[in-house]
C-alpha cells in the first residue's frame, strides 16, 4: 500500500516523470506508479492536469501537482529527510536558476532538431556543446551540482546524464565528450548511484525507441 496515498502518473521514457520517481525514491517514499499511454491518456490524468494534459502528475492525499520542477520542490517541502534543495537562499536561487537553464535552454536545440525536425542536428549539437561548457564550469570544485550530495539540479540534469547518451546512440553522434571531464565524471557517478539507476528506463529499449522516433527527421548518415 503506497504511503499516504502517493501516486505518480508517468511515461516510461519521459525524463520528466523519471525525475519525480528519483526524488521519491531518494526520500524513501513509497508510491503507486501509473503508466500512461500518451496516445490514449487516462481520464484521471486529463482531470488532474486539465491545463496541460501532460505527465508527470503527482497525486498526494487526493491533490494533484503538475510540472516536474514544481513537483520536485513539493516533494522536498513535504518529506524533509534527504533534502534536495540547499538551505542557503542564494544557493537555492542558483539551484532554481540552473534547473531552469537546463530545461529552457540546454534541452531546446536537441528537442527542436531530433523531435521536431526544426533545426539541423549538427547545429543542435553545436549549441548543446556551448551549454555543456557552461555546465562544466558550474561543476567546478563539486562532486554533484548539489555540492557534496545530489540535489535539485542533479535530478533535473538526469536528462543530461542519461538521456543525452541515449540520443547520442540513437543518432550516432557524440556530444558529451572528454572535452567535459567533470560532466563525464559526474554523469558516471550519477547514473550508477544505487537508487537512481533503479529509476532509469532500460537502455536498449530506450535507444530503440529514440531511433524509431527520430527516424523521420534523420538525414542519411
Amino acid at each position: 500500500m503506497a504511503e499516504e496515498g502517493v501516486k505518480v502518473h508517468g511515461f516510461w521514457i519521459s525524463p520528466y516523470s523519471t525525475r519525480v520517481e528519483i526524488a521519491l525514491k531518494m526520500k524513501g517514499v513509497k508510491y503507486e506508479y501509473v503508466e500512461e499511454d500518451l496516445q490514449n491518456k487516462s481520464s484521471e490524468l486529463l482531470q488532474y492536469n486539465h491545463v496541460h494534459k501532460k505527465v508527470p502528475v503527482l497525486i498526494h492525499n487526493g491533490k494533484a501537482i503538475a510540472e516536474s520542477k514544481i513537483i520536485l520542490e513539493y516533494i522536498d517541502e513535504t518529506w524533509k529527510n534527504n533534502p534536495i534543495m540547499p538551505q542557503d537562499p542564494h544557493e537555492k536561487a542558483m539551484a532554481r536558476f540552473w534547473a531552469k537553464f537546463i530545461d529552457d535552454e540546454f534541452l531546446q536545440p536537441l528537442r527542436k532538431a531530433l523531435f521536431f525536425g526544426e533545426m539541423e542536428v549538427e547545429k543542435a549539437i553545436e549549441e548543446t556543446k556551448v551549454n555543456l561548457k557552461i555546465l562544466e564550469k558550474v561543476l567546478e570544485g563539486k562532486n554533484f551540482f548539489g555540492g557534496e550530495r545530489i540535489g535539485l539540479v542533479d535530478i533535473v540534469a538526469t536528462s543530461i546524464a542519461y538521456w543525452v547518451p541515449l540520443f547520442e546512440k540513437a543518432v550516432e553522434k557524440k556530444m558529451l565528450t572528454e572535452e567535459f571531464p567533470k560532466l563525464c565524471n559526474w554523469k558516471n557517478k550519477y547514473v550508477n548511484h544505487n537508487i537512481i539507476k533503479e529509476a532509469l528506463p532500460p537502455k536498449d529499449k530506450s535507444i530503440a525507441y529514440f531511433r524509431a522516433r527520430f527516424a523521420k527527421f534523420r538525414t542519411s548518415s
Partner: protein
Amino acid sequence: MAKGEVKLLGSWPSPYVMRARIALNLKSVEYEFLEEKLGVKSELLLKSNPVHKKIPVLLHHSKPICESLVIVQYIDEVWSSGPAILPSDPYDRAVARFWASYVDEKFFPALRALPMAQGKEAMEAAMHPVKEGLALLEDAYANHSKGGPFFGGGQISYLDVAFGCFLGVIRVSEKVTGVALINEHTTPGLAGWAEEFCAHPAVEDVMPDTDKLTEFINRIIKMKSQSPN
C-alpha cells in the same frame, strides 16, 4: 539596512522587473534601481548575468540573482520577517508556482503576439489563446483566492505578483484592439482583482502608465520591423 546593499538592474517597462520591485516593496526593502537603456546592455548587466544577459538582476551584497521568479522567491526567503509572498503550505505553494509557470510559458507568449497581429483575421486568431488563458486564470482565481481580493486571499502573494505584472501589457492590448480582455462579464473575478492589485501600495508606483507603455511598445514594434532578423 544600507541602501547600497541591494541593487536592482532593470527598466521601467519590463513586467519581469516589476515582479522584483513589487517583492522588494512588499518587504519594505530599500534598493538602488539601476535603469538599463533600451538597446544597450551595461557592463554590470553583462557581468552579472553572463548566461542570459537579461534584466532583472538583483544584486545583494554584490551577489547576482537572475530570473524574475527566482528573484521573487529569494527576496521572500531572505527578508523572511516581512509579509510572506509564497504561502507556507507545500500544496498551496505548488499551485501558486504552477500558475506562475503557466503565465510565463503559455499566457504571456500569447499576449505578446497580440500587438504584432496585422489584419482582422490575424487579430482574431491571436486573441483566441489570450482569451482562453484568461478564462483559465479566472477559474484559478475562483478556486484558490478564498474570497480574495488577491490570488493569495487577503494578502497579495506570489501569483498576484507573477500575473499582475502583465496588467500593463494587457491594458495596452485592450487599448490597441478595442477589446476589453478583462471585464465584468467574462472575467468578473479578474476584473475586481486587477483594480485591487494596481491600487496596492507595493504596486502603484511601479505599474507603468498605459499611454507611456503603449508608446514604448509601438517603438519596439517599429524597431523590430525595421531591423532585418
